């Protein structure tokens, strides 16, 4: 809504421009732009009455307490001549229709003052008839429409208007030249056979006022907001008129607006009235709404008295009656459809009193459950552990498209992917479905950064966010996932040698640290095979027998799909599954009092036997006294025979209750060597 301060000044004294802006803002009328007394206002969807100069002046008067000087416009008495007939199919769509037939019109340019007002209001002047209808709309908020009366003429010389829903198969070419197929969802103004306008939205080209038009039918109507909204949604456009009807147009002012426009048409276009008719099918009735003083004060945090409360409401030109010494009864005004309950009046009191004059207080009362929930605290701990491993947190879109999923090599596969939920109305082809895996998101970030600078240091990133796994019908299962990705970038050239290269074990160290930091000390890694990963460099992670994730080196094909110049390593963990294995319980272990005994073992075994297997065999054979086990050397190649590897292990034994002697440890070592020979086919290297 655009309006000039000059225009408002005609009806109410306004403060200087800058203060007027504040008055608008504090009334709830957003000021989008203000320049040289010209305002562009943002009108909320509940206030149709602010879409006219009269309504805005009324609000400014209420907010400033200044006197309102609106011109008095009286309804004109109907002039009957029986040529004019208005039919309404459904009073719920159109409660009131006022039609005036005017003749002897001389189409011309409007006078300058009128053109100026229209331009200031953001409208283009056309001719005196159209301009007058637009002017009255800007003034009173009532959209009007002028038909060339020939378009609604009947064969018998009468004029016939039918307000009805369009029938299937009907169409209309609107004033802007566009053809629209109509349906029952569109409310139309029709002549005796076909639509000549979309009610409250736009006239039809066939009924347009032309340069030679001499006879005009002036429409002033109250169309139901829902009907106009339905038409606009169906035809997918809106106009200055529909913006007003969709909100609310004063149903008590229909005939007054017609009188105002008629007066101007007579003055400026030489018209005279042939006939007029006012069909008020569902007359508007005021409702009585109560407002309690105590409730108002409690809800706002104010200490108003009853006379003040009454005075505040009266400033809005509401009719206020006293019900008892604690309650008022307010008659709802016809120009507002947003007041139906006490709370609506309480808001009015707050607005007129001034939101800025309501004192700031703080609520009282304790909340025993304040702060984060247990899972949220674990989430924070998880994030903190990953940050401490030097990973950068990223935030990626949870929407993606099928192409990205395919590029990441995702197939339906339990933890990694399921058929995604598709959007019915995506805006962009990049975002058509909800992700079921973090993998494409993570690869996207690596790609983006590799593209920025091929010589950049290794990217080390993580995200803890949701994936959306569809369930039959219903809402999807939204699971928290942790995704970690490392790129093996060019090692940094540095005077200090020793920046380690990124490999599978860099990632495993992070994952291990993460799981142990959360208290999951018993994670098991097994060789796994997943299409997205290098076939020889991928592990599944299980906790107490449950699969909770996967980590590995990205398959070279997928690396290529994402234009990654270097190898990449990715871990995907199901945080919700992981959380079920975690506990906050930690029990202190005494610091050992007795010294340990350290032994080294070097064994020769088949390359296919995993470290995990060796570990398990040793732990079983060694029993509780084995405190630590490390692999300190691994070697293949001559002199180690083909197909074999040499593995060197360091073992630390300790008895918490006494000092171990060599004899006891010798015995354990003998057991271990025996078990390794027997179960892993290992040979002791001497």
């Amino acid at each position: 809504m655009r309006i000039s301060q000059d225009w408002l000044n005609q009806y109410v004294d306004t403060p200087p421009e800058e203060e007027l802006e504040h008055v608008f803002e504090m009334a709830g009328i957003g000021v989008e732009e203000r320049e040289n007394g010209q305002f562009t206002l943002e009108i909320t969807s509940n206030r149709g009455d602010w879409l006219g100069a009269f309504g805005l002046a009324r609000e400014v008067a209420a907010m400033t307490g200044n006197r309102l000087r609106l011109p008095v416009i009286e309804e004109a008495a109907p002039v009957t001549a029986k040529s004019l007939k208005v039919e309404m199919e459904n009073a719920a769509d159109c409660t009131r229709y006022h039609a005036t037939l005017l003749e002897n019109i001389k189409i011309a340019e409007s006078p300058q003052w009128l053109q100026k007002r229209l331009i200031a209001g953001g409208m283009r002047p056309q001719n005196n008839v159209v301009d007058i209808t637009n002017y009255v709309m800007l003034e009173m908020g009532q959209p009007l429409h002028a038909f060339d009366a020939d378009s609604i003429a009947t064969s018998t010389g009468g004029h016939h208007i039918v307000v009805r829903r369009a029938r299937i198969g009907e169409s209309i070419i609107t004033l802007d030249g566009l053809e629209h197929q109509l349906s029952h969802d569109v409310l139309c103004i029709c002549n005796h056979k076909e639509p000549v306008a979309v009610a409250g939205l736009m006239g039809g080209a066939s009924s347009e006022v032309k340069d030679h038009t001499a006879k005009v039918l002036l429409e002033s109507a109250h169309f139901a907001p829902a009907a106009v909204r339905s038409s606009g949604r169906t035809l997918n456009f809106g106009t200055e008129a529909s913006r007003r009807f969709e909100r609310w147009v004063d149903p008590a002012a229909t005939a007054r607006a017609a009188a105002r426009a008629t007066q101007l048409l007579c003055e400026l276009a030489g018209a005279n009235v042939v006939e007029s008719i006012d069909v008020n099918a569902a007359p508007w009735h005021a409702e009585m709404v109560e407002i309690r003083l105590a409730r108002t004060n409690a809800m706002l945090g104010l200490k108003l008295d009853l006379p003040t409360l009454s005075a505040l409401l009266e400033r809005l030109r509401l009719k206020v009656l006293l019900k008892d010494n604690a309650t008022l009864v307010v008659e709802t005004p016809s120009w507002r459809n947003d007041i139906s309950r006490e709370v609506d009046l309480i808001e009015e009191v707050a607005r007129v009193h001034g939101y800025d004059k309501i004192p700031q207080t703080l609520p009282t009362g304790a909340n025993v459950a304040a702060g984060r929930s247990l899972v949220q605290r674990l989430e924070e701990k998880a994030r903190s552990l990953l940050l401490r491993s030097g990973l950068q947190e990223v935030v990626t879109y949870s929407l993606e498209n099928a192409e990205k999923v395919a590029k990441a090599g995702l197939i339906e596969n339990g933890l990694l992917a399921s058929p995604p939920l598709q959007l019915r109305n995506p805006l962009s082809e990049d975002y058509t479905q909800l992700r079921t895996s973090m993998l494409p998101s993570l690869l996207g970030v690596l790609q983006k950064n590799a593209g920025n600078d091929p010589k950049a240091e290794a990217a080390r990133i993580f995200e803890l966010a949701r994936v959306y796994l569809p369930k039959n019908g219903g809402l999807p299962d939204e699971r928290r996932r942790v995704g970690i990705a490392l790129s093996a970038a060019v090692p940094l050239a540095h005077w200090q040698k020793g920046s380690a290269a990124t490999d599978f074990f860099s990632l495993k160290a992070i994952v291990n640290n993460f799981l142990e930091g959360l208290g999951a000390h018993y994670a098991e890694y097994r060789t796994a095979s997943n299409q997205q990963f290098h076939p020889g460099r991928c592990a599944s992670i299980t906790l107490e027998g449950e699969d909770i994730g996967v980590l590995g080196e990205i398959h070279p094909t997928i690396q290529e799909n994402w234009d990654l110049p270097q190898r990449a390593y990715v871990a995907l963990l199901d945080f919700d599954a992981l959380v079920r294995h975690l506990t906050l319980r930690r029990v202190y272990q005494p610091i050992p009092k007795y010294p340990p005994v350290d032994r080294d073992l070097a064994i020769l075994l088949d390359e296919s036997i995993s470290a995990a297997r060796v570990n398990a065999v040793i732990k079983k054979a060694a029993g509780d006294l084995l405190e630590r086990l490390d692999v300190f050397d691994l070697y293949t190649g001559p002199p180690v025979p083909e197909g074999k590897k040499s593995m060197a292990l360091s073992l630390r034994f300790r008895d918490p209750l006494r000092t171990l002697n060599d004899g006891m440890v010798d015995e354990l070592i003998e057991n271990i060597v025996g078990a390794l020979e027997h179960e892993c086919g290992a040979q002791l290297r001497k």
Partner: protein
Amino acid sequence: MSSEIENQLHELEQNANDQIAALANLAEWEETRRGLLGKKGSLTGLLRGMGKLSPEERPRVGALVNQTRERLEAALEERRDALKRMEQNAALASEAIDVTLPPLPLPRGRRHPLMQTWDDIVRIFSNLGYSVAEGPEVENSYYNFDALNIGPDHPARAERDTLFIDDDRLLRTETSAVQIRVMENTEPPVKIIAPGRVYRRDAVDRTHSPIFHQVEGLLVAEGVSFGDLKGTLTTFLQQLFEGISKTGNLQTRFRPHHFPFTEPSAEFDVLFNGKWLELGGCGMVHPKVLENVGYNSEKYTGFAFGFGIERMTMIKYGIDDIRLFYENDLRFLEQF
């Protein structure tokens, strides 16, 4: 006889002191110590000459010898400490490095700037006694619209603005839906914030993103007022933007507005570099919303508020393009 020994003793001490003062390193020091005080040392030799003295003189001369010995030992000790210091200083001097050389960089884990703001918000509201609630991002129309008093005709429900899965399922357009889910499962008082992702059918540009983050706040109890809402948000904003405002006392403004789920409704602004910046929406929970979840709207009142985490973060750091948050360019992320 005794005076001869005394003379010798005197001479020896003088020579020894000269010798000690001239010592250049710990090896020489050891040799000198042995030469003076060792079994075959000169002072020990002198002591052997005591046999020639008369029994009356022996105690006096003996005492003199012992005093000399003590003095020499002390002098040696002092010299040894000095020599040690000298040797250490020399060794340290040889180990000097150019401390201005750059070290190998340690990978520093950084939180995403949005998540830093998220954390700040959660911290401040936790301290004010709010629980942190969550809800689904894929929502039923009922929770996203109907229960929030957003009627079937409301423009927000249009295909143009909301991303739908089907008629009943959509990507939530605000975190307000969490309000309803929490109230359905809790008796008042309810005091929550709900941070999370929300979705709009917007094209990506400098100020729009189809996915962004919001925080919803809700307090429903007996006697909650609009004044409480103003006080709570002002306290929160002053803490969130601590140190950002030049005057030190961040100014807030509450302007009337219209939302279907609050009445009275407001938008709240902060004064930043002389301009009012709109931050979010708030208001007293509409009695219809309370009634929708079966609360007694006569007994309980409440307030609700919502704002974007992106907007807060952009204001805090002067970021002018929302796309930077999701592009995850490390050159951007590493600035926080």
